[in-house]
């Protein structure tokens, strides 16, 4: 197939043109693009805040920005990255694009609701950007009371409204995925033939629907106390400040799994494709996702071991936190076992997937330190925690996201990115990431508290290492931005299935037609049938797998 053929054939990108055709689209694939552009923008805004934080921390003195500005920087970095990049990234971009295609559906169950989700997301984002433009917010992304509800003089309400609104976008996306996965699977696509990407998104959707309302209500309560002085969290008004922490973490701990479960789903697809093997222990990996989603709701108190909650509550939360670590460990072992006797190639998506396993392993294992009560008391609220959750969220989620973007880029655009550059970028990100965050484990154990604008001079050397790593990381993130945009015009034509991958999304042309499949596929076997040659697996145009 040559270039002109791609352009002549009608597909979802050229079916119609103009800004209206994008802003009023109900095609899940186009909505995925709307999300892709928005979350990329938020990622680089959040990255800009991170850059200033790392520059400030080059020296122990507060010489680049004022204390108040520094506090706003880390708050806006956290708020932007968590609520406007990490939470929507994989589900709203890759999930939106792939959930219908992987199960052989034409679209999500509620296409207009899907578009509404994006507008709600943008509306929430607009409030938060307004808050930033109006002077920012300085409470930390955790909004701990009574600082956030009474004492802070910054734009707490505006920010909180932004997050509240955006939450509805998550809830609606979750709802849409759950209904779609239940009701719209193609004939023969039984639950245990689903790709693990779908299982991961199903588990994530459950958290979206059950968890997000809790954070929404909690943030409304903060706003009510701030505006009307209702005594909910401030003891001076008769409230309880620790109540806020319970409510906040009841959502925000599961939110960590919102960020990492979809990445696990991506990694399962990548490992299978680039080692040409079925995922080892498919059903164990699938149930591990659900296990994480369920137990993840019962561990919130591990954020509060030093908050003054009872020692016995601390012990129960510690025990449950260890239990939630087991399914993650099982997944890592299964991915590793998938490589055994495989046929492994080192294309860029695979490099990201292997990077994910390495960094997620370190992130997960250091989580054990935090679940261990006697150690958490010492490292709580230090850079050890910062390092740990960046290993999970950046080392895990962002590596998974980038791996997925590279893997499905040919499907989304019809073109291939330059492989050499992509491998180089993956390598740079891996090195830059470790140099940025590994020293922070040491910083934390020697006692550097988080959210410190100025710090004792003995912490400087490790901070300089971290900032040096961050500049390498920045280069690593700018590279894909550049070559992926370049590839839209100059990339070689991808063809239907450039990776020799299995899965319904690869059986339709790249880019796919608006209706995804010319005829509804009929599925006769489970995911990851890599032992069969591509010719043995059918193509779109006649019923699949028959």
């Amino acid at each position, binding site marked *: 197939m040559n270039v002109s053929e791609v352009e002549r054939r009608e597909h979802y990108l050229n079916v119609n043109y103009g800004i209206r055709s994008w802003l009023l689209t109900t095609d899940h694939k186009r909505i995925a693009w709307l999300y892709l552009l928005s979350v990329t923008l938020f990622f680089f805004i959040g990255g800009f805040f991170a850059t200033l934080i790392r520059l400030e921390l080059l020296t122990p003195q507060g010489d680049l920005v004022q204390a108040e500005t520094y506090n706003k920087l880390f708050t806006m970095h956290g708020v932007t990255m968590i609520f406007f990049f990490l939470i929507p990234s994989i589900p709203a971009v890759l999930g939106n694009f792939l959930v219908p295609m992987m199960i052989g559906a034409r679209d999500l169950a509620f296409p207009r609701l899907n578009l509404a989700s994006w507008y709600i997301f943008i509306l929430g984002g607009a409030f938060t950007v307004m808050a930033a433009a109006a002077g920012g917010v300085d409470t930390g992304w955790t909004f*701990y009371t009574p600082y956030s509800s009474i004492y802070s003089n910054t734009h707490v309400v505006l920010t909180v409204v932004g997050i509240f609104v955006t939450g509805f976008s998550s809830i609606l996306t979750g709802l849409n995925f759950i209904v779609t996965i239940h009701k719209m699977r193609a004939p023969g696509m039984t639950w245990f033939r689903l790709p693990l990407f779908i299982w991961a998104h199903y588990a994530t959707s459950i958290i979206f629907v059950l968890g997000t309302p809790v954070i929404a209500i909690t943030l409304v309560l903060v706003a009510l106390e701030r505006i009307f002085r209702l005594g909910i969290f401030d003891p001076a008004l008769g409230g309880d400040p620790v109540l806020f922490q319970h409510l906040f973490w009841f959502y925000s701990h599961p939110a960590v799994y919102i960020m990492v479960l979809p990445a696990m789903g991506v990694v399962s697809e990548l490992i299978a494709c680039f080692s040409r093997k079925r995922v080892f222990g498919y059903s164990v990996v699938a149930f591990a996702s659900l296990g994480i989603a369920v137990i993840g709701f019962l561990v919130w108190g591990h954020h509060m071991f030093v908050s003054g909650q009872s020692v016995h509550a601390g012990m129960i939360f*510690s025990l449950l936190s260890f239990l939630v670590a*087991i399914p993650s460990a*099982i997944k890592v072992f*299964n991915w590793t076992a998938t490589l055994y*006797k495989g046929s492994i*190639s080192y294309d860029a998506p695979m490099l990201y997937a292997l990077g994910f396993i*390495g960094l997620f392993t370190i992130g997960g294992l250091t989580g054990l330190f935090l679940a261990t009560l006697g150690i958490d008391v010492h490292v709580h609220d230090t850079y050890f925690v910062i390092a740990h959750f960046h290993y999970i969220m950046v080392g895990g989620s962002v590596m998974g996201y980038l791996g997925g973007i590279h893997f499905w880029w040919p499907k989304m655009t019809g073109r291939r990115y330059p492989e050499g550059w992509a491998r180089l970028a993956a390598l740079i990100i891996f090195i830059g990431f470790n140099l940025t965050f590994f020293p922070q484990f040491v910083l934390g154990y020697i006692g550097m508290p988080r959210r410190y604008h100025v710090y*004792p001079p003995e912490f400087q050397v490790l901070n300089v290492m971290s900032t040096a790593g961050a500049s390498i990381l920045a280069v690593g993130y700018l590279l894909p931005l550049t070559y992926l945009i370049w590839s839209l015009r100059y990339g070689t034509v991808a063809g239907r299935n450039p990776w020799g991958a299995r899965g319904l999304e690869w059986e339709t042309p790249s880019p796919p037609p608006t209706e995804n499949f010319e005829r509804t596929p009929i599925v006769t076997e489970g995911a990851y049938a890599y032992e069969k040659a591509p010719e043995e697996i059918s193509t779109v145009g006649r019923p699949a797998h028959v």
Partner: protein
Amino acid sequence: MNLGFPLFPEQASTMAARVDALFYFLVAVTVFFAALIFFMIVVFAVKYRRRSEDERPRPIEGNFWLEILWSAIPLGLTMVMFVWGAIIYFDIYNPPDDALEISVVGRQWMWKAQHPTGQSEINELHVPVGQAVKLTMTSEDVIHDVFLPAFRVKQDVLPGRYTTLWFQATKAGEYPLFCSQYCGTQHSGMVGRVVVLEPAEFEKWLSGGATGLSMIDQGASLFKRFGCETCHGAGGTSQGPSLAGLFGKTVKLQGGTTVTADENYIRESILDPRAKIVAGYQPIMPTFKGLVSEEGLLQLIAYIKSLEGAERKAAQK
């Protein structure tokens, strides 16, 4: 090896070595498993690299016993971590009875401490080596946190209630004190130091620059000034329950419930007297909210605790 900067924090309390031992155990387990995973990935990635485009490896569905094995081993190891960590945690938050008590009040953005003998200090804490010290802490505004890295202990300091932290220093010297719960603009300036002195030095420090009045005496004078004696005193009207010997006792409340008379109960009874009414008394006590400072409350509590001592002394005679 001296790199010019520390890679490990100083060990200066009885808890430090215990926490570090557990830390080393976790480091060992973690390094082992991380190395195992990395080693397997590298070996597999090299050994099973794609040699020809036509390779179709035979599928492996999984292995039940392997799944059991790699679920059970991590489960067993994490349970060791859990129990070991819980024991240390329990000890970190259960101070010995003979601990030296010091009151700490945090506010944006400073630490105020008062010793039983009356000495006050700001952003410093003088303590003796070899003796358990218990901090009873509260905040005047937002949540703060006392973090003593060299002692491996930490506790949030909450407004509106008391939390406690204890440690026993093992080495004389100066150690950093950080606020580790984000508390606003000058959060990173809310730092101080713990000065650990030899017992003799500490006695000398206590007697130097003394303010004269102990916390109990200061509490007694507040007790008079606010007219608490009228209802709660020995020669009073007995409209309120007697406070002698109250501390640590179980109090019967209206409605049949009971409460232990600890610092938080006394604090609440002063600031919000109608929250818990003692059985047999009328809810007539006015609130002292806004009238008495956090330091004053701690002094009043010290005084009320001392009333127990007086009763015991009488009983001993």
